[in-house]
């Protein structure tokens, strides 16, 4: 089955991972900007990172016929530094028209502080003023419930935002209902210990249905599994769910959401491009 991983940090993965993902049916992915595992010292570091996301990673992915898309922001953890965050935010507009850029993300909260909320609101301002889609990071573990509620408060307060153009990621059992009932898309992250397992993600599909729901691996530099989406596919099959339902969650839903971004120029894998026909003849 073809699938699309809507949230994976390939800058942290090897080229072998691209090959493995392609062999397992991954035909597309979106990579939000995130924390590198250490705090960067200047806005220039982010400019280099944005070039990596918009130039280098799509090229590396294309070698395995994986179509790579990206989102830009300063992540919640480094957003504690408001001055640096505002310098980084000023860099983003020049990258938004690059091919494959889908919008602003992954923005959100980490420890639910005032500074994080301030920078989150700055990102919403940028997204609303430039009509960008938004991808949201929700906090981990004990901070998730409180932080997700605060994020939804800020999103719902802003009357300019179209909720169908916002993906709230890392939902779990105690946050998914609020996200879906407010009209947002929801992402379930399959990640060891701190987020969700394939079985629990399948449970949430069985409780809430497949509408506006996606699964992702969030594969990154930490303990994580970039092939987690195929694990979810297998779990759903073992429970006897139809292929059409699984395909909707792992392929059709991501495409439906991403197609709302003008930067999403996806070629379905079934379509053979003219250049390829020419090469084969």
């Amino acid at each position: 089955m073809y699938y699309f991983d809507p949230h994976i940090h390939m800058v942290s993965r090897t080229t072998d991972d691209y090959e493995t993902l392609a062999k397992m049916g991954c035909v597309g992915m979106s990579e939000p900007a995130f924390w590198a595992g250490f705090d960067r010292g200047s806005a220039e570091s982010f400019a280099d990172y944005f070039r990596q996301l918009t130039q280098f990673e799509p090229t590396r992915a294309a070698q395995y016929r994986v179509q790579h898309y990206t989102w830009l922001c300063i992540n919640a953890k480094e957003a504690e530094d408001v001055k640096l965050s505002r310098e980084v935010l000023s860099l983003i507009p020049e990258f938004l028209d690059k091919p494959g850029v889908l919008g602003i993300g992954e923005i959100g909260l980490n420890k639910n502080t005032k500074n994080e909320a301030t920078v989150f609101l700055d990102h919403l301002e940028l997204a609303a003023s430039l009509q960008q889609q938004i991808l949201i990071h929700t906090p981990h573990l004990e901070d998730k419930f409180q932080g997700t509620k605060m994020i939804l408060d800020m999103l719902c307060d802003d009357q300019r935002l179209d909720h169908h153009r916002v993906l709230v990621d890392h939902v779990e059992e105690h946050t998914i209902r609020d996200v879906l009932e407010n009209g947002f898309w929801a992402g379930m992250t399959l990640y060891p210990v701190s987020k969700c397992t394939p079985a629990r993600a399948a449970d949430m599909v069985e409780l809430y249905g497949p509408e506006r729901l996606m699964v992702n691996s969030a594969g990154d530099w930490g303990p994580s599994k970039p092939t987690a989406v195929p694990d979810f596919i297998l779990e759903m099959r073992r429970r006897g769910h139809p292929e059409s339902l699984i395909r909707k969650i792992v392929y059709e839903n991501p495409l439906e959401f991403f197609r709302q971004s003008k930067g999403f120029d996806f070629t379905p894998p079934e379509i053979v491009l003219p250049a390829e026909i020419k090469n084969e003849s």
Partner: protein
Amino acid sequence: MDVSPNAPRMMPAEAVLDREYLEIRAKLLEVAASFDRLERGDGSVDSDPRMQQFRDAMQMILNSTGNRAEQLQLIFSRSYAADWRRTFQLSSP
């Protein structure tokens, strides 16, 4: 337990039990062994608030019907205060 009208059909309970019996048994065994390990360790963590969270979680699993995963998540979550904006002195756009 509330299930969305759009939710797909589930496996029969008997089939779920057949499939997951050994898995659930193994998970319970891991929890039991973890508590033994905590007890064998030097000192005591009985008064640590995290131990109370574990006790609350196990009571809830035994006593509740439905939405156990959601309730367990809430036991391990910080509470939400709706007036957080006022605390932070942040205004809406």
